[in-house]
């Protein structure tokens, strides 16, 4: 374990360069650059609020904007992070063929650069809270475990996907489908009360991302969360994390044969 932490320390410059590359390339050749990480969630949330506010009779509820924004920010990071990570090994084939570096750095850097963009985009919560006429309370601390749990989960899932994708290109397409299912099971743009009594509600509780989104909402909209909403995504995320790193360690020497 000590060896790995030392190895990680040795490669911090490479990791920072890879993260920098991700951010730079994402907004290269756009006039507004990184400002898009703020404008884009604001605009898409506005659309969702208008459409689903009308559809679900929430047009008069000012907190609906916060509700949607919390779900959208969390889900978008999870989506971009895992998608990016799943392609990371293949995308860096040129480097992998040249010299040995621990392969986990590639998916990890992909998740991390999306994480930085996610952290920046959290700024948009300020105007959204103002629109929703919500004042920050002490419950805001829940965002911190929420963010940490989200990062662990995304790294873990991203790592597993990146290993699988080297051997099976199908993962890319399969994951797109799964992401859509996860999106609908995260209650991003529909009010949860509408399906609370539905017999498939348990499916939502099986989704760790839904629990994390709920933590965000609890923190912003000042309501309490049961303990299992912390515990379940934690256990799920840590298992994914461990499985991802073990799979990476065991399989990384074979990657070169499939690139």
């Amino acid at each position: 374990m000590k060896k790995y932490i030392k190895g990680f320390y040795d490669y911090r410059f490479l990791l920072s360069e890879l993260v920098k590359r991700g951010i730079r390339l994402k907004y290269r050749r756009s006039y507004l650059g990184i400002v898009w990480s703020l404008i884009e969630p604001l605009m898409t949330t506005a659309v969702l609020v208008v459409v689903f506010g009308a559809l679900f009779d929430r047009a008069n509820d000012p907190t609906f904007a916060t509700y949607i924004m919390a779900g959208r920010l969390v889900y978008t990071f999870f989506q971009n992070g895992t998608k990016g990570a799943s392609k990371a090994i293949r995308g860096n084939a040129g480097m992998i063929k040249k010299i040995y570096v621990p392969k986990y750095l590639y998916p990890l850097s992909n998740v991390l650069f999306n994480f930085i963009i996610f952290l920046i985009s959290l700024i948009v919560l300020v105007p959204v809270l103002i629109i929703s006429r919500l004042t920050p309370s002490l419950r805001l601390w829940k965002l911190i475990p929420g963010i940490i749990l989200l990062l662990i989960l995304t790294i873990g899932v991203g790592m597993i996907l990146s290993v699988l994708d080297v051997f099976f290109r199908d993962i890319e397409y399969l994951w797109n489908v799964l992401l859509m299912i996860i999106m609908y099971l995260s209650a991003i743009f529909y009010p949860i009360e509408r399906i609370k009594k539905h017999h498939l509600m348990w499916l939502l509780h099986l989704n760790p991302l839904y629990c994390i989104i709920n933590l965000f909402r609890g923190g912003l909209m000042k309501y309490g969360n049961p303990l299992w909403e912390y515990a379940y995504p934690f256990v799920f995320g840590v298992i994914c994390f461990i499985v991802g790193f073990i799979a990476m360690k065991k399989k990384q020497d074979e990657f070169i044969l499939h690139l």
Partner: protein
Amino acid sequence: MKPSVEVSHLGMMFNLSKEMHDTLKDYFINLFKHHEKMKKDEFWALSDVSFKLYPGDRLGILGLNGAGKSTILKAIAGVYHPTTGSIHKRGKLAPLLELGAGFEPQYSARENIYLYGSILGYSKEFIESKFDEIIEFAELQKFVEVPVKNYSSGMKSRLGFAICTAVNPDILILDEVLSVGDKKFRRKSEDKIMSMLNGEVTVLFVSHSLEQVRRICNKAMILDHGKLKCFGDINEIAPIYAEMTQEDPEEIKKREAKAKANREKKLREARKTKAHDIINMTNNLDISVEDAMAAIDIPEDKYKTYYKVIDEIEKEEGILTKQDALKAAAAEEAEFDRAATFPNDEDRAESDDDDFDS
């Protein structure tokens, strides 16, 4: 002194059939295939290769195509993980493999130098201090901010070479890199490599050119189908390799003789067809053999050859040119006349004697 590179019982196996499935479908199909067949597709690019190199050793790796030269370099660079055996390295490694590859196409040269440098394990301060030197060596001063995707392959290779050689490594891995760019740059890069050989650095060099290996290396080894054939001083190994790549003189003679025979056969056939033409022309158009030959553009000095060929055809196939037929008839007549004058040979001899006497 501790060895800088220690390779023991290195084996590299590639499973040709296993590497083929890229999709889930292929994977399941392969699951049901017989295990026997899978075994057959095992390919050992290297097997049981062991050697030690000490600081200052400059090893030339020789061998024919497919002998496993590049595989061994990649295994030492850490790109391939050994299937069996082990590799130990001591010191900083500079791998000059696939020079033009591994760049981020959308990045400028400046950004790529930092990224590439970080992959090679350089520190930020080190890259900053060497930046100008790298650009100058790669001759890309005007293109520092241009995205690498707009570079020519030569420019990319030059940049790769310059970044990789910015350090003073302990182990230098060269895979035919000295064939990068134009002649001027090639000379420059070879000078650069030579300047890095300060007596302490260990070099592994793959090349097809024995002459280049002799110039750079003091040790050599020959790989043959993944096996280490011999390892030792360059002066011992070079003649073996020269012999290996040279063809057997007997073989060359045989091949040349065969080619010559073939050429002659073809020429003879061509002459025969022409000779037939000549015969036909003389018979049908009632012209002399010379005229016929002149008509189909046969040079005068070849006339004799063609007469011979025509004679051969006449003998073999019983066809006669008109002229020869006339000549033959005339000869027969003359013979007949002579026979009338001299009823037998003895008489003729006598008469000859008589003539002499009188």
